[in-house]
């Protein structure tokens, strides 16, 4: 009898989800593009510098002919008005765009998850009040307020604490950097509402289960129950939603940079590069097309990855 039994290997939620994700060709495509893109923006600028001597700010000396050259072997994406290599600028801009997307999403995660978890766990009138506030905030046209916020506080009117924070992390007196920090907060604070709702819904369905009761019976504090026991169990939907928040935040950043109130020189993002390219689209279309296409490809991949993750992590909703 013993020789007939085959051992069944146990599988965890995450392994199972990973297997399902790998079956989804579009999600795998998205994952691969994102990995390549992240590696490219991290090491790409250094490689270009090593191979051709170009950096995102390198302007050819005055004795050389400065004009916008179309794509060539030396400059695969061409050069811009000042003669700078567009590939190097797109890679450098990718760093900023991805960083804004990821860090703003983390800000929205921290706020949204805490808020939703606290409201869901405490329940009753506190929950009612907290979610009413979310409902009210939902109907505010945020984009208007973000535009006002960024333009009144941008540039030389930067709030002191953001200046100090950006000086501490990224070196002193860098106005462009503190503008990017302002973007993190502005965009993060806009996108936490849905996250709070998602997490609250999850917590509501979890909080009456035995493990929470056990934790309460053994005298674990409310804070620890929420953040040690309940929040880790909401990870699946939170990851899915975060993956889909990154492209939408990146799109908003690009929109703001296009209007000239987002990322400021000397920094550039895909949005600000595309905005620069638009001015010359009739004569030098590559100035717009390459940053635009790179950005679209990234968002495309992130969206597919987010969709795939949702299907993989939540097989119940996958009726179709």
């Amino acid at each position, binding site marked *: 009898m013993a020789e007939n039994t085959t051992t069944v290997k146990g599988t965890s939620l995450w392994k199972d989800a990973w297997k399902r994700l790998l079956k989804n060709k579009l999600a795998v495509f998205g994952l691969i593009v994102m990995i390549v893109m992240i590696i490219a923006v991290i090491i790409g600028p250094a490689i270009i510098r090593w191979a051709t001597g170009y950096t995102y700010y390198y302007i050819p000396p005055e004795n050389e002919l400065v004009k916008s050259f179309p794509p060539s072997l030396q400059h695969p994406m061409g050069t811009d008005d000042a003669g700078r290599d567009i590939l190097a600028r797109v890679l450098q801009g990718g760093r900023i765009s991805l960083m804004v997307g990821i860090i703003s999403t983390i800000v929205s995660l921290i706020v949204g998850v805490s808020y939703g978890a606290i409201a869901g766990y405490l329940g009753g009138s506190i929950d009612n009040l907290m979610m009413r506030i979310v409902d009210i905030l939902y109907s505010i046209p945020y984009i208007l307020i973000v535009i006002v916020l960024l333009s009144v506080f941008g540039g030389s009117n930067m709030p002191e604490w953001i200046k100090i924070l950006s000086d501490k992390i990224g070196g002193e007196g860098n106005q462009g950097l503190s503008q990017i920090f302002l973007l993190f907060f502005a965009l993060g604070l806009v996108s936490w509402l849905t996250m709070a709702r998602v997490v609250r819904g999850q917590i509501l369905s979890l909080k009456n289960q035995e493990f929470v009761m056990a934790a309460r019976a053994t005298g674990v504090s409310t804070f620890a129950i929420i953040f040690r026991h309940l929040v880790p169990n909401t990870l699946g939907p939170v990851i899915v939603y975060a993956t889909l928040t990154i492209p939408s935040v990146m799109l908003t950043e690009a929109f703001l940079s296009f*209007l000239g109130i987002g990322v400021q020189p000397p920094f550039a993002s895909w949005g600000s590069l595309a905005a620069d390219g638009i001015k010359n*689209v009739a004569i030098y279309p590559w100035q717009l097309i390459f940053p635009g296409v790179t950005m679209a490809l990234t968002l495309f991949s992130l*969206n597919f990855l987010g969709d795939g993750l949702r299907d993989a992590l939540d097989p119940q909703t996958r009726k179709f």
Partner: protein
Amino acid sequence: MLSFIIRRLLLIIPMALLVITLTWVLVRIAPGNFYTGEKKLPAAIEENIKKKYGLDKPWYQQYGIMLWNTVRGDFGNSLKYERETVNELIWRSFPYSAIIGLLAYILALAIGLTAGIIASLKQNSGFDYGSMSLAMLGLSVPNFVLGPILVLIFSLWLYWLPPARWSLSGIILPVITLSAIYAAYIARLTRAGMLEVLRSDYIRTARAKGLDEKTVLLRHAVRGGLIPVVSFTGPALAGLLAGTVVVEKVFAIPGLGNIFIQAVLNRDEPLILGIVAFLSILIMVFNLLVDISYGFLDPRIRYE
């Protein structure tokens, strides 16, 4: 139902005032002033400017005056376009934005619903995969990239359409640019909603009763499948506003979005407050209309 509508309408007033307060605080706590420029003003002139705009009063009086003006709907004259009142500016520019936005949403509905319904009926077919990939592409191309590329192709290479003119042929490109992302969203929402509804019990009941497929689809399935699309209308409207800002800039249309950006960059406080108040109320009223329409689409939803 009626008391629900009245309660929600009454809620709009404090919420609009909240948005206005938030905007006012943001504009006010920022360092500097609308009149501070490159040159330092003599103290006497600064005094006079302050007096003219009531900036010499304590802040709570200024806040009170601002709120009272908002409630009366009188925002005074713009600081930059001094000859015109804020209301005149809004009413002059809003029709441009409204026409572009409305046409874009109608186009998005037409494309999105058709593609979504066909994709859900022919699930996993070539059309399904093709249209859904196209929808994903629509979600990923920023409209300020799409707009100039369309101009490049249709105006500068093919000479089919004008790149910027307020005419019937001139608004084709802006409308397409603005509608792309919404068509994509609506197609995805419709497909998902329809797939869920097509598997539900009441559709099986309808089929079991012997209703023909056309009635089942048009009278029963579509009605339920459209709910996600209807609830998207609220966020879509807010998004259309942001979208018109871009499209108006790309295609040089003198709409509300364009004026708003100018107002913000100029720190034109009355104009900023006026536009924010106008748009907030517009969005909130639309959200209310959306909530009311749920009741008609889904008989299970009742308002008390």
